[in-house]
């Protein structure tokens, strides 16, 4: 199994979710994160004191899929998250050695 993790623009979350569901993903987990990268942050100025806000709000999506689905999951995320503009984000793929569904104890692909 693979864990496909993506950092995307927040307003793209719904499209990414739909794209993943369309290819058969049954679940996913999202986290509010802040990202630093090529896309510039902004400056906040409070009564003359300047603060560089180098981190931008991003959403991290994690979806665990069977190996066979991994490539399509990557594509789906890419399709859903792309605006063509800087800061669209990244997708990283991790290997997973085990998955368990807590409720039933099922393991492996059955747990997803």
């Amino acid at each position, binding site marked *: 199994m693979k864990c496909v993790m993506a950092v995307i623009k927040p307003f793209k979350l719904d499209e990414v979710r739909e794209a993943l569901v369309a290819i058969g993903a049954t679940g996913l987990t999202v986290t509010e994160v802040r990202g630093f990268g090529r896309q510039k942050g902004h400056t*906040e100025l409070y*009564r003359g*004191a300047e*603060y560089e806000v180098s981190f931008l709000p991003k959403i991290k999506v994690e979806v665990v899929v069977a190996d066979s689905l991994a490539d399509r999951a990557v594509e789906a995320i890419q399709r859903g998250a792309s605006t063509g503009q800087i800061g669209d984000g990244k997708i990283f793929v991790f290997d997973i050695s085990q998955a368990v569904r807590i409720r039933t104890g099922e393991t492996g692909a059955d747990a997803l």
Partner: protein
Amino acid sequence: MKFSMPQVGLMPKVGGLGALASVLLFATPAFAQEFDTGDTAWMLTSTALVLLMTIPGVALFYAGMVRKKNVLATMMQSFTITALVTVIWTIVGYSLAFTEGGAWVGGFSRFLLSGMELDAAHELAGTIPESVFMTFQMTFAIITAALITGAMADRMKFSALLVFITLWSIFVYAPIAHWVWAPGGWLRDYGVLDFAGGTVVHINSGIAALMAAYVLGPRIGYKRENLAPHNVGFTVIGAALLWVGWFGFNAGSSVNADTNAGMAMAVTQIATAAAALAWMFAEWFMAKKPSVLGAASGAVAGLVAITPASGFVTPGSALLIGIIAGVVCYWAVAWLKPRMGYDDSLDVFGVHCIGGITGAILTGVFATAAIGGKGFDGLVDGDSAQIVTQLVGVAATLVWSGAVSLILLLGIKATIGLRVEEMQEREGLDIALHGESIA
């Protein structure tokens, strides 16, 4: 029957000792039998409004500007000061400030409010019960102390704060209130005009705050880490409540529901609005964006600056006072402060002291007998001496409050210490001092 002597706020109609004498004639409880229900109603309301300024007003205004880990501790400062100064004022503060004594300080005749019977009246407010006058003035003592805490944000020891405020209220606030407002006070007799507390409240708290910033030293990470306000929304709500409550502060300082109160409310509204816009446009021009914190700060600057003038000037003058105050205070925090090298964290000095001085001087410029009554003329009426008189009031306040505050702060630093441990400051005062945190 209304108290027949015409009054403008707490100010005597004519300066000097003559006024004092004539006022003292009324200082018997005899006239206290008949109060005016309208005046009393307004002063009860004004008292509630001024209390609202501190809690939740200042509490929110300041809490929005600190980091999230210090929100509760910041609110706690205003809340506890409200309680503490109430008790001090009851025991000794009111007596020292508002009873007859000398030119410098009052006496102990109202120690623990003894003698403040049900139907007593204070000579400065003959149409309302003294209980109302005492409580109204109490709320001024409270907010003045609470304002200082803006300079101490994020690093002041709570126990040290309580000690400082106790001593400060007795040795700084009470005397200065006596000088400026009490019959016999030397600045009052000298002719200083301060309708609602530009010197007593704002210059006074502002210079004390500067001393605190200086003695405490800067916050860890000052000018290196991101110390940005965690929620300017709270600050806007706080500023809004300050604005609303200030009607009680300024129009209440008329001590009557009369034409002076009405005009004081009008000019307060106008100057505040003008200052908010002035700061906003100045910042828009200089820093390219009109910030929300800027608009809120500008409003407070306007409120501060119109305070001493609010019983003496026309609406047109108020417009000018507001514009000047907005620009000057913006300059004070955005240009002056970074060059002074102290960390007055929430800009008490820049807004309250500089704004208060601006207002004091402009009162000398714009005071007019048409509003304040005979004898209250400023430069616009041709009396250029009033500005000098005002400057004496400013200087006296700066010197006394600055010096005594410094002594108190150094004394506390040398004994129980002023500042929390480094790890406590890192962890945040909410958990370190009060064992609580915001989810």
